[in-house]
């Protein structure tokens, strides 16, 4: 069970959170200038790295806020927690 430091509430158990998958995925638009291929990538294609992964988390059973987590998928180390609209942190 991960220990995740919610930016608003502090360290909490993973059971309070929901993972929303890969982050920093911009929704393409407007529709009329978005190609089928662009839209399909947005809908269906996600990274599945062994190692650093930047992902969205929701503190559902806490403050209800979304934020970003930089996590190592192999060691489960949480390398950074940052705001949803922040730029990606300098972690490897």
């Amino acid at each position, binding site marked *: 069970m991960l220990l995740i430091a919610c930016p608003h509430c502090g360290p909490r158990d993973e059971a309070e959170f929901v993972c929303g998958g890969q982050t920093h995925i911009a929704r393409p638009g*407007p529709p009329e200038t978005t190609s089928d291929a662009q839209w399909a990538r947005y809908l269906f294609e996600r990274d599945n790295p062994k190692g650093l992964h930047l992902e969205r988390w929701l503190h559902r059973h806490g403050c*209800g806020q979304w934020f970003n987590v930089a996590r190592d998928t192999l060691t489960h180390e949480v390398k950074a927690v940052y705001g949803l609209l922040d730029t990606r942190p300098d972690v490897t």
Partner: protein
Amino acid sequence: MTGAFRTTTGGRIDRARPLSFRFDGRAFTGCAGDTLASALLANGVHLAGRSFKYHRPRGILAAGAEEPNALVGIDRGPGRYAPNLRATQVEIHDGLVAESQNRTPSLRFDIAALADFAAPLIPAGFYYKTFMQPAGWWAKLYEPRIRAAAGLGRAPRGADPDRYTQRYAHCETLVVGAGPAGIAAARAAAARGDRVILCDEQAEPGGSLLAETRARIDGLCAQDWLAAALAELAAEPRVTILPRTTAFGYFAQNFVALAERVTDHLAVPDPNLPRERLWQVRAREVVLATGAIERPLVFPENDRPGIMLADSARTYLARYGVKPGCRALVLAAHDDAYGAALDLAAAGMEIALIVDPRPAADGELPRRAMAAGLPVRMSATVVGTRGRLRVHEAHVGTIGADGGVRGVDVVSCDTLLMSGGWTPSVHLHSQARGKLAFRADLQAFVPGATPQACRSVGACAGEFGLQAALGPATRVEDDPVREGGFAGALPHDRPRARAFVDFQNDVTAKDLTLALREGFRSIEHVKRYTTNGMATDQGKTSNINALAIVAAASGRAIPEVGLTSFRQPYTPVTFGAFAGTSRGELFDPVRTTPIHGWAVAQGAIFEDVGQWKRAHHFPRPGEDMHAAVRRECAAVRARAGIFDASTLGKIEVVGRDAAEFLERLYVNSWKKLEPGRCRYGILLNEAGFVIDDGVIGRLAPDRFHVTTTTGGAARVLSMMEDYVQTEWPDLQIWLTSTTEQWAVIAVQGPKAREILAPLTEGIDLSRDAFAHMAVREGRVAGVPARLFRVSFTGELGFEVNVPAGQGRAVWEAIWEQARRHDAVAYGTETMHVLRAEKGYIIVGQETDGTVVPDDLGLGWAIGKGKRDFVGKRSLSRPDIAAPGRKQLVGLLSADPGHVLDEGAQIVAMRDPPPGTPALGHVTSSYWSATLGRSIALALVADGRARHGQTLFAPMPGGAVPVAVTGPVFHDPEGRSLDG
């Protein structure tokens, strides 16, 4: 006297407190402090189980969690049967009932032991090779037979009447293992002010100190030092000592799961206590002091009852006052076996011979043994044993300089003690994703780096001896260095003999080399093919020997071969501990509406919708469901009905940008919707598929009352939050779940207006003042209300929203009026029938996550000229724009009395050949009282172009012809909406 093999003094058992217990129906007596294993040994019983595959008689091998053979079932009464418990960990109490496993009819005579004579025919992978053909026989014939013959204990029958609890705990230091190293770590942590949890799987903390006979610590004997150290720890308010508590799983970020056995050791447990307690501990630092497991030696016929680990035998003597036999042969590849021989000899046991495969042993303990006159033979090994239910002789051969074994001397013995050295218990370290390093001097893996705040101390770190465990500040005397260790198979000259590596899974050295010959190289594959190290045991005594055999046979070094994964749990954990209180009524919350009690009193039959209990129908005396639903349907269409719609999801969307937000989220247009008006909203996901729907009313320019499906409420709110926070943080809106704030009473039917009129204040109910799809605020039955003029039946309809606390009172007031008009209360089934007659969809019934609005004929709802909304771009994806999509249609079966099965496939031919793809399927199907016949909704390829066609629903009794129609069966012009 509690057994012929009990010593008169010594040990930690209480000879003054005899306890009676039964094993396989026979009565025995043990002492308070005994385990089942020690009590059986005290009575001279070694035979405790039959092996998994060959049904060979097996004895007690070890004294702790690593016991692979003596697995027993404990029967504590109906529903309280626990299989596969290690007799070495079961504490006896008065009246304990235990039984052996995997034998028919008895332990001493097991007919399935014939498998043992057929053993040459049952090599590794036998099942995989033999039972492949013919197809289908595996499931029907082979597997049931094999499962009956092989296997461990039987599962308990009946519901478990015991109670289990769960606790969360936080501490700075969690110490796993209360042996000397763990106690030292706990004392150090307590001294610096930490909150400390010290857990140990045994009944009393102390680990090896409980059986220490030689060493003196700070001038005290080990047990006195232990008592003082524990008393000091127990006096610390920030220290929690948990005996009978196994740390069985180590998860990310120092989250460790502990299973505490609270009452199993008690003859009459306090009914207020749970049977077990699951601790979920988050620790700043975890100290692993899990000790080491003595390694068996792999030699021919090393599995007979009476053959034990040497230090386990010594533990039985020192801790439980039990002599394991009368005359022992000791096979010593490690100096500790000499210590065991010395202790047992001092207690009066005859040491027939100490056989040491090493060319020389000049450690302190071997020297003491020789000085004491114990017979020792170096460069020798055991090449065979005899004895069906108990070893009675060992065959000793000499290891030559070339490694070959010559000559056989027969040594009679009733006990054979072996030691291959120690394997550090690195299970939890490995679960913590720690790396392992091989130490050739120990022939074992020790902990390496770990990504977590976790360290291993004492024997589990490969640091043996009390001084290393207790640290330099504690003075330890007479704790000599012990050396040695052997991994792999000892040499012998009997190619056909079986030398067991994994006792629990009946894996021999030959099975492992066979796997290699057959091409398995990866140790993970060898493990699965041979089953070495699997099941409840997880290879505690066998892993290293198996690795060494595989390494030697494949010409690789042990670290090259690698280790198999250490899986959770360390020892088996009951399902009850995991379930905790989440069972029965507490498994899932039950949600009821404010009107629930009224429906119960009326005799409603309920259905589960998600967590909600909803009234399905209200039968009158003598009515079955069909009759009740027919009556309810007819009454609503003829007069009126009232319906509890409180479970509808409700979300208040408020703020400057509320309309803009809904505009971006729903397919519909919202900006031009005037306050006081409602609209039927459709919500898609980004893939373009319908995921929810509901009426949304605008109460004010900046305030919307959004309704969702009953099951979709939480999902829609989450989705809204997601978009607000992550896609459109520029929007100023606030979202509030109001599902449980409002009771919703639907009043539907031509008399709806007349029913509500006497109760309504501040709202003009007239047709012109209050049109269909309008919302007003006023009072109903004196209670502030939001009144929607909406219809899910096709009749004139209102939905009365009142604060939940007054829901029942308002319902009863409306019911009073309804009865004057001979109206009914109706349930969800009637609601379903009435909406289906009108072709109204239900999300999740007409949709399945692959349906776009146009498929449902709802393309009209999409706001014209809207540039974007969630899912819009997907509606022009090639697959969705392509012809041939399944579209919503109505189906009328040729026989009007035949109600189609929901889910029935629809095809174009009466008797389609196998493999013909279906055109679609029935999504809803009912008897329509209004039409006096059956109706159905279906999704059918190109359905709208098929109106008038006859299609077929193939059923077991023959295909049912159906006519395709539009989905609206009743009042297609919508005349009834205005009453």
